[in-house]
């Protein structure tokens, strides 16, 4: 298919074997990363379609587009698909997979076959969830609160739960693989203190994945036992306790927020130094704050339950700890800001996304401070204020980080340069569309509009119309990269080894890299982000043209 005029093509991980089998049975971390990229992109647009339908329904106060049952399934499946099949795997499974070995100078992850197994587990879990969707859907919300999910819901709870259970093991095994790889396979000279910050955040993420996900598996398994065998665990009519489920669920699902956001923080810590041509400010503070987030993240779960009927004193403790977990995030934002100070700034697409991340994540974090405050949480809990808050973190934060990573490393992954102008147009569209979608929702929430409402009082309409308009812009923003990135595969300029003149071992090898990553095991004698030793960033028009 390739109509490239190049005569001598270097062997890369992409052209070494074109058979389907060589892809489906590959143990090359880079190929597995691409399998993940294709799968999660698909899941992202499935989840996005549900979001679009939700926003269209909410254009008017009446329930005129879909029935209430359908609406309930839409928001449930939007949450399940986006969280378990897109956000959780997103950066770790794609960019972590591709770049953890490359950044430490290794040839692959520690367990290449387990890595392939992880992808298959996600596919099996994803298929089960897709099966549950096409055979009627789930209407429990992604939170599966009991006893609704175990006793009252008549939908595909078991299939979806099983899908989440299986997909969870994909996440656990990926985390395990990264931890072992980072401990055991660093190139000579690559000490912990010289590791790029992306690796610190991948390490912290992996810890959360390994310790948190089994608890989700337990919670889902117990829902299964109660629903199928009527063993009383959560349903009070069978002698169970409904709050027990909420504790188990949030024990995973709050740290899961950090599985989604820590990797993006890692990406931002790579992108900002590169486009400011500067070592990151406060390396140790940024690295350790990732670890602090992973640790404190496990101690705040009951802040989802301030109005659920827990004791007022335990609420007090969880409120205090929630402020403790906010601090490392604030430290990161301050350090990134200081990194820009006296830099030499290039506003390219990855940098726009990274700055967009800082802006939106800061707003998400600041509104998190409102929710940690007990007196305010009582009012805004389970309203659109919460919806807006976590979308600022998960879409404004996690997805912006994903887009930054996608554009930053696209030349390395594919060997091609994406069109810069279109990149900037898309980044700006996404930023504007996002804010128009979710800013009005903060106001809606404080006014009292509850979440998961199919119909709503007429006085909430104007803000909902604004939100839906924003969502349409956001949708276009997400479709643009799909088009121009595909376009660049064929028509993009060749990237060369290091189009950004970026620091990091991944940029010292060919683009796309050879299967074995490095011809010789690199020996690291420099600190991370040694931009003072690197040439300036090439101008936009000349980027990639030199083809080193």
């Amino acid at each position, binding site marked *: 298919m390739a109509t490239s005029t190049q005569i001598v093509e270097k062997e890369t991980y992409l052209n070494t074997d074109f058979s389907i089998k060589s892809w489906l049975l590959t143990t090359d971390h880079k190929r597995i990363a691409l399998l993940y990229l294709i799968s999660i992109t698909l899941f992202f647009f499935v989840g996005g379609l549900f979001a679009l339908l939700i926003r269209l329904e909410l254009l008017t106060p009446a329930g005129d587009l879909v029935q209430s049952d359908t609406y309930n399934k839409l928001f449930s499946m939007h949450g399940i698909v986006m969280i378990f099949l897109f956000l959780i795997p997103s950066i770790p499974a794609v960019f972590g997979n591709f770049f953890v070995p490359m950044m430490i100078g290794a040839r692959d992850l520690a367990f290449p076959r387990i890595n392939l197994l992880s992808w298959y587990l996600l596919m099996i879990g994803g298929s089960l969830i897709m099966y549950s969707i096409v055979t009627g859907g789930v209407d429990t919300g992604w939170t599966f609160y009991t006893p609704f999910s175990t006793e009252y819901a008549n939908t595909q709870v078991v299939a979806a739960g099983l899908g989440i259970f299986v997909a969870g093991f994909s996440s656990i095994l990926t985390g395990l693989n990264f931890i072992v790889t980072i401990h055991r396979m660093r190139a000579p000279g690559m000490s912990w203190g010289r590791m790029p910050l992306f690796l610190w955040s991948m390490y912290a993420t992996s810890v959360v994945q390994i310790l948190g996900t089994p608890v989700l598996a337990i919670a889902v398994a117990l829902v299964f036992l109660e629903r199928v065998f009527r063993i009383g665990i959560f349903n009070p009519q069978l002698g169970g306790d409904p709050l027990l489920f909420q504790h188990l669920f949030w024990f995973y699902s709050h740290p899961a927020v950090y599985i989604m956001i820590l990797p993006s923080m890692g990406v931002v810590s790579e992108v900002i130094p590169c486009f400011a041509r500067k070592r990151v400010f406060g390396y140790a503070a940024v690295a350790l704050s990732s670890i602090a987030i992973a640790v404190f993240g496990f101690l705040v779960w009951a802040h989802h339950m301030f109005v659920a009927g827990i004791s007022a004193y335990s609420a007090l403790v969880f409120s205090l700890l929630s402020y403790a977990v906010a601090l490392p995030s604030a430290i990161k934002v301050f350090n990134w800001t200081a990194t820009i100070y006296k830099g030499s700034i290039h506003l390219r697409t990855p940098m726009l996304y990274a700055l967009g991340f800082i802006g939106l994540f800061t707003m998400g974090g*600041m509104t998190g401070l409102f929710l940690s405050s007990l*007196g305010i949480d009582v009012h805004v809990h389970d*309203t659109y204020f919460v919806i807006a808050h976590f979308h600022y973190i998960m879409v404004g934060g996690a997805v912006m980080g994903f887009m930054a990573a996608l554009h930053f490393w696209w030349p390395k992954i594919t060997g091609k340069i994406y069109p810069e102008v279109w990149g900037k147009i898309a980044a700006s569209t996404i930023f504007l569309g996002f804010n128009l979608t979710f800013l009005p929702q903060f106001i809606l929430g404080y006014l009292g509009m509850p979440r998961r409402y199919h119909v709503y009082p007429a006085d909430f309409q104007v803000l909902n119309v604004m939100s839906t308009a924003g969502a349409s812009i956001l949708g276009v923003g997400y479709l643009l990269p799909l088009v121009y990135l595909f376009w660049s595969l064929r028509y993009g300029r060749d990237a060369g080894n290091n189009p950004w003149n970026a620091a990091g071992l991944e940029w010292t090898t060919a683009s796309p890299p050879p299967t074995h990553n490095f011809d010789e095991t690199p020996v690291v004698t420099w600190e991370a982000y040694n931009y003072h030793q690197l040439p300036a960033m090439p101008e936009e028009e000349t980027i990639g043209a030199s083809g080193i």
Partner: protein
Amino acid sequence: MWLKIPLWPSEASTISRNVDALFVFLLSVTGGVTLLVFAVIVFFLFKYRHTKHPVAEQIEGSVPLEILWSVIPLGIFMIFFGWGASIYFAEARPPKDALDVFVVAKQWMWKFEYQTGQREINVLHVPVDRPVRLTMISQDVVHSFFAPEMRVKADVLPGRYTTTWFQAVKPGHYHLFCAQYCGTQHANMVGEIVVMEPAEYQAWLQGGNAEGSIASTGQKLFQELGCISCHRFDTQGRGPNLQGVFGRPVLLDDGRTVVADEDYVRESILQPGAKVVAGFKPIMPTFQGVLSEDQLLALVAYVKSLSVPQQAEPVTSRPPVPPAAGGTPIAQ
């Protein structure tokens, strides 16, 4: 409508002003800091753009700065925390003189029961300037009582009573939502809170359809179900005498002590063997599946009325239910 974008919910309870004051404080502080950070970033982006500033200055970091921007936010966070906690604790402690209303939630409606026997669906009438305490339970899944103009919200659980309270300050009609997703008609599990002037409220109570107070309904049940044959009002019964028990600590046969609150009474009816009073045999049959949540609430109210001191302030113009056993229920 298109010209009028609502930005602020009305303040209809004593607590709503406190919540709003805290919200405005947080909004000012976080908004100010956010704008400051954004302004600094935009300024740096402009000032240090590569065309004007081609070579970056390498800066390692600064420990004093790290400490500064950790300690200052932490201090501010502690204000957010303390202020929020003080409101939460006020919300957790209903005043003693509160008007009691029972709430039974089910898919997909709210049922309100007044101590004087009136019942309503999806509408809650309350007098202005009087604290109202809600004791709530669900018949099926988890619901959540949410009155945005009052700034109160509390989940309503199956199998366990939860409470919340508010004191309305302005007569009017206010939203009532179910905030916890509960199935098909979740978005239609909405109602109205009608806040009335005290005189109006009295008139409304008189015009109600009450068939006797909740406690008297409970008393009838207590007799019909034969509870009275063991729970006699002397020391000769096979079960404990329930007079004066409510709200007091009870010694159990395993040596533990529990306070006889609503949940304890309810549990003792449904699972009599769970917490047996010291000196009694676990011989009581369960009433699981026999009684509805409304009937359980009536029995709880009756047991509670057996401990009401005589000088208790009457809930309405009518006298309170006398604690005497075997008396005729006060019918309206």
